[in-house]
């Protein structure tokens, strides 16, 4: 307990403080709008729009008719030659930032000659030709089951298809291929040798041919989710062969527990690690990393417990005893975070009058902090609701907010370690740095690949493999 009065300089509060303020602001913006659905869907996060209907602006000279729902296509007249194909693209190109894209076409009627096709074309495509008959286009044709990719002669590919069949066209960004399905079964795939955005495309060419298209509004005949899982597994098995040092995970977990001050868990883990067979190779106790890792471990654990139980007054007094340098500047970010938390706890306990008085006496001195306005507004908004936890600022009453404050105090204490040269190193645990690196690398790799494919998503990893 007597590590209290350290001789070091006041900690680099600004850097650390502003990091946590920014984090709170970010949370406020992303969570405040939708209290129930915490995370946007994977695809919303990427900000790309998907095709939803057939395009009616760029028509192909009127050879075909798009239905009023913009999801059906009819070829009413008899065709005369190869340049009067009734071909229509989707209203938007296929989105890039995902593993797969897919859409389906149902053949309502094969008409006179069943010259229907499904495929992908670019924006430069001549909208009078079958997809696949021109460069930079791909088409799987129903009358001959061939795949056309850029010229008039097709390659043997799959079965023919006709009235009553459902065919699908997809893009696999990981393998850079187009793939096609018939009635729920993959018939084949072909290398995607075209750069830039491509439009899902369907075409009809003989009299009375009629098709409908599904861009995902209705369930697909093809089990896309299962196929996606299959493709991910394939990627995964390449990754599984990578070699990592044994016990690397164990070490990172230990380091995490040390960093955030989970002292009791760490003790039990160390005991268990010694008795596994074979015993885990533990870091020697005197190494520099170990000493820095366990700096003020007991104090940090204690303070985290206090904050997580909402005992903010006690937090202030304990900090005042042990680390006065952290709270001596009453206008620091740490103090701001703690005062806000005290306010939140008072609201949680239903002591609204006390909360108002507290806010009035404390908040004013933080006016100079950036983000102050928005954050104080969020706190104050709690007072407006009968059931604040269900409101747009309900996130403040969740454990995650207490966690944020606890992490901020934890980092401030770590920064009082005289051995620490760079305060920034105290902010992120080793695990966090690894996750940031893998995320950034995947994003960069994707960006160098024409922005195609999915990003690294921790939530996907965490939720994978859950059955039932």
């Amino acid at each position, binding site marked *: 307990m007597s590590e209290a009065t350290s001789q070091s300089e006041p900690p680099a509060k600004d850097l650390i403080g502003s990091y946590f303020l920014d984090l709170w602001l*970010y949370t406020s913006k992303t969570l405040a709008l939708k209290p129930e659905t915490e995370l946007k869907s994977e695809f919303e996060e990427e900000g790309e729009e998907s095709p939803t209907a057939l395009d009616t602006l760029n028509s192909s000279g009127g050879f075909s008719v798009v239905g009023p729902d913009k999801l059906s296509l009819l070829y009413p007249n008899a065709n005369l030659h190869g340049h009067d194909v009734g071909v229509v693209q989707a209203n938007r190109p296929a989105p890039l930032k995902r593993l797969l894209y897919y859409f389906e076409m149902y053949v309502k009627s094969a008409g006179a000659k069943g010259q229907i096709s499904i495929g992908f074309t670019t924006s430069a495509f001549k909208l009078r030709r079958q997809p696949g008959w021109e460069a930079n286009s791909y088409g799987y044709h129903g009358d001959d089951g061939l795949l056309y990719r850029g010229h008039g002669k097709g390659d043997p590919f799959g079965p023919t298809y006709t009235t009553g069949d459902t065919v699908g066209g997809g893009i696999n960004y990981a393998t850079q291929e187009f793939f096609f399905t018939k009635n729920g079964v993959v018939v084949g795939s072909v290398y995607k040798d075209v750069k830039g955005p491509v439009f899902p495309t369907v075409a009809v060419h003989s009299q009375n041919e009629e098709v409908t298209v599904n861009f995902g509004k209705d369930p697909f005949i093809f089990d896309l989710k299962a196929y996606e899982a299959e493709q991910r597994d394939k990627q995964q098995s390449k990754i599984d062969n*990578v070699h990592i040092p044994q016990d*690397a995970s164990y070490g990172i977990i230990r380091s995490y527990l040390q960093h955030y001050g*989970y002292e009791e868990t760490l003790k039990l883990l160390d005991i268990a690690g010694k008795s596994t067979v074979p015993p885990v190779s533990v870091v020697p106790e005197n190494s520099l990393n170990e000493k820095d890792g366990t700096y003020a471990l007991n104090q940090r654990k204690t303070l985290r*417990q206090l904050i*997580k139980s909402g005992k903010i007054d006690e937090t202030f007094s304990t900090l005042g005893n042990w680390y006065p340098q952290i709270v001596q500047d009453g206008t620091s970010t740490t103090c701001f975070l703690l005062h806000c938390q005290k306010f939140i706890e008072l609201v949680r306990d239903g002591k609204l009058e006390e909360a108002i008085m507290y806010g009035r006496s404390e908040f004013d001195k933080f006016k100079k902090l950036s983000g102050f306005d928005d954050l104080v507004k969020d706190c104050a908004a709690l007072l407006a609701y009968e059931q604040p936890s269900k409101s747009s600022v309900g996130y403040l009453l969740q454990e995650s907010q207490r966690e944020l404050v606890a992490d901020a105090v934890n980092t401030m204490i770590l920064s009082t370690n005289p051995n620490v040269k760079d305060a920034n190193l105290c902010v992120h645990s*080793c695990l966090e*740095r690894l996750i940031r690196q893998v995320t950034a*690398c995947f994003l960069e790799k994707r960006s160098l690949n024409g922005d195609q494919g999915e990003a690294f998503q921790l939530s996907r990893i965490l939720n994978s493999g859950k059955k039932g």
Partner: protein
Amino acid sequence: MLTHPDLSPRSGGTEADRFEKIFNYHAIISSVDLMASLEDLSDNLDVNSLETDDLADFAAMATSKKVITRVDWEKKLNDVKVRKEDMNKLVMNFLVTEGYVEAAEKFRLESGTEPDIDLATITDRMAVKKAVQSGNVEDAIEKVNDLNPEILDTNPQLYFHLQQQRLIELIRNGKVEEALEFAQEELAPRGEENQGFLQELERTVALLAFEDVTNCPVGELLDISQRLKTASEVNAAILTSQSHEKDPKLPSLLKMLVWVQNQLDEKAAYPRITDLSTAALEDPAS
């Protein structure tokens, strides 16, 4: 060599401009050996007066890899927001899958993270694992059946490996007669059904043929690693029967990091993490 008037220091412009002109000149006359050109260039220029960015640009041109400076990379890193809850979940998942029950219980209290599996089932699973690791295979089999009789029923390979381990332990303890009886009654029938089992059986029985068992061709069967292999197999089967993934997610994440860095290395030079235990960034090779 560089006698062209445009390329002499007196032609004016910044050092960077001159660098660019010389570079392009070389590119035109000998598109093949750009690296040699660069060496030539550095002999004739005051390289110290060039900005880091200029150097980076030209390095990129020479090697056709995108160069990302430390500063830019750190900006990208700062844009990544990692949720504390998600990290806590990763930790809990590790503790639970690896069977550190007490640590998992404590972590639940200290962090408020809920485990994704009933902690009570971990104790049972660890008891089985420990029994195999200590060579008490009969005990382990009994425990597995208590936990869920379907596990061994639906897993003939696992059952065979457990029986094989029993045989190994009998041989290890010098109980030759008992071993032979066991092999004939319990294992031989399995061997008849399955070629792979038969081969394993023959290998195991071969232990009896040697005086110096530890140095014989099948000596590895007596090694502790064989027990660990079997223990691991049982552990995985129990987890699977409980609809839980048999491997923790963290090692997979680490492998992804190594993999994606290797992939990215082909197209870019950027700060890498080589030491997973410190996650320290190394400046891009310049």
